[in-house]
């Protein structure tokens, strides 16, 4: 598995990609959020160079673009891991034990000191407010694949499988 090299390669911003996004979305200030979404989707975060380029193209100040990028939880200014694990901590999941699941994941992937992405950029672990699947509580998603009724034990097994086989429908 050569995930690490793949990610390093993808963090260099491709000017052609930015140009094609701008062509598609336009350069009105209203296009800012869809543009940021497209970049986030491609790089799994918003690289600084890309934001500088967008601020220039849209005629918005860099501070304004940065302000929008930091306002929404969906955007990240730091590279995310190959696997983004989201633990739902909405009311239903919380009551059914989402925090022990969250702690188990952090221990399993060796996350310490309040960091959310592992040093090898393999995993990002975060909580979200509600995924809207309360019937399956507690819920965990890994790169948008949903795992319901999680326990600490189950999630450890899932991560083991991930490490051996990768995500199945990736």
């Amino acid at each position, binding site marked *: 598995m050569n995930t690490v090299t793949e990610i390093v390669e993808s963090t260099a911003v491709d000017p052609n990609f930015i140009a094609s996004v701008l062509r598609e979305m336009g350069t009105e200030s209203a296009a800012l959020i869809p543009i940021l979404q497209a970049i986030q989707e491609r790089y799994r975060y918003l690289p*600084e160079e890309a*934001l*500088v380029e967008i*601020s220039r193209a849209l005629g*918005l*100040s*860099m*501070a*304004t*673009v*940065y*302000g929008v990028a*930091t*306002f*929404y939880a969906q955007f990240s*200014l730091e590279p995310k891991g190959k696997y983004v694990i989201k633990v739902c901590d909405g009311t239903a999941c919380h009551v059914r034990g989402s925090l022990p699941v969250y702690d188990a994941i952090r221990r399993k992937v060796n996350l310490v000191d309040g960091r959310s992405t592992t040093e090898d950029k393999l995993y990002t672990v975060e909580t979200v407010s509600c995924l809207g699947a309360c019937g399956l509580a507690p819920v965990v998603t890994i790169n948008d694949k949903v795992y319901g009724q999680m326990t600490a034990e189950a999630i450890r097994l899932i991560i083991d499988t991930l490490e051996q086989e990768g995500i199945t429908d990736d």
Partner: protein
Amino acid sequence: MSWLMVNGQSVVLNGEKSVLDVVRKAGIDLPTLCYHPELTIHGACRLCMVEIEGRGIVAACHTPPEAGMVISTNSAVLRRLRKMALELLLSRHDRECTSCSRSGHCSLQDLSYRFGITDLRFKQEHDKQLPIDRSSIILRDPNKCILCGECVRICGEIQGIGVYDFVHRGAKMVVDTAFGQHLAETDCVHCGQCAAICPTGALVIKPQINEAWAALNDPTKTVIIQIAPAVRVSIGEEFNLPPGQSTMGQLISALRSMGASKVFDTSFAADITVLEETKEFFQRVESGENMPQFTSCCPAWVKYAEQSYPEYLSHLSSCRSPQQMLGSLVKKHYAKELGKKPEELFMISIMPCTAKKFEASREEFTTSGVPDVDLVITTQELAHMIKEAGIDFASLPTTPPDQPFGFVTGAGVIFGVTGGVSEAVLRLGYELITEQELEDVVFSEVRGYSGLRSCELTIKDRTLRLAVVNGLANAKTLLEDLKSGKAQYDLVEVMACPGGCIGGAGQPITNVNRQVRHERGAGLYLDDKAGPVQKSQQNPAVLEVYQKWLKEPGSAEAHEALHTTYRERDARCKITQPLPGKV
């Protein structure tokens, strides 16, 4: 005629945009922390809340007035809510007032006193102090920020730059630069308007009073002072004198008693600027190159051009600003006359401007490795020093400035107000074109305070197209019009601050009030009229300086001492090319 009721009294409506304007017109000083008449409405501080019958409680600043409204401003519930809003702001505010340089001029402090807030119900979280940015001449202390957004709007709307914005969300929201960069790395032009408008001490100008005292008290240093035109009509405000009253004579007396050995007038160098810049202008008119010519007195504008419009740098006049011209003349020529080395002289400029602090530190403005201007202190800082020294400013006798840089003309004095540089140049240009003496020196076409004004003047057989700009957002508009061919000019004057230097961020804090700025401007025009000479070309002291050191305007000697070059800045606003001759 339509009207509404405020606290039981009828008030006639006369085109006011908001309930706030109507209530204030009715003589009620409704408190605000995020409202400014020259900026867009933000509605964040919630202090201007009023009760409108049938509507409940609303923020007056963003409620349009309607005929028949019944408004109350001082009910028990409003007083309670207003006080609570203040208490909540204070709970997130670093209240070290005694060591805050905004103390005494802080709107939050004033309102806390006015609303009798003597103890705080909401305790402050002391362990969450954010770092202070000291990278620039503007200091940013986010622990004192109340998120009113005035800095965000003045930088974006008036200066067209937008160094700051709100970043993050909810309880974590702060006003910050892009990527949390230090201010020195951003496209900030140091105009300081954000600090002038900040209601608290979150944005202040780096105080350099101690450096000034150190030089004044150092027996090995000869301290030479220069005073900019706009300072004389504003510093009196700090001593209960009306804005616009010229106090140059008192200023000189005060500085002498504080230990200055010579006090010069920057308007003298403004007169020289007129001669150099007019010469340059007619050379360009002849050759047709690099037209239109832009003025270069304003250091905030110069930096803005370097970072945002490098393609227009060749259009800027190569003249240094008057501050740097005088600094250069003192260190390069006057020092020799005194029999001293440049490093033995310490030049302090008293400026209405914060960008001058930045300008003085530019590497191109040095003589034998010594800065031409060693220290810049603002009008506010000098007022502070005068108070510290216990000097009764208003009752000081008047003293004339020292020679050889003391005699000034009205043309040099009006450099401090928007349109002044253009008018001063026209007073010379007219005589050069017509070869006749100009009788009426007033060019009302270039006077006024609107942010972007233009005129065509026909002098003899020539038509000059002039534009006068204040506020960099207007400069941006003008430059875009030039680029697209929508507008054509011959001479463009740009000042970054509203009203020109009289509205500089180093001025007394009343700055933010348009009326006060206009009174300061009127004071300069009065000084111009009252002086013995109104044309730079008739300044005998200037002619003597040319005779002694510079030969004639535009000479190689004049270029060496009075002109400069400009270099493009990179994306981080750093200059990357070396100075010419310094590879």
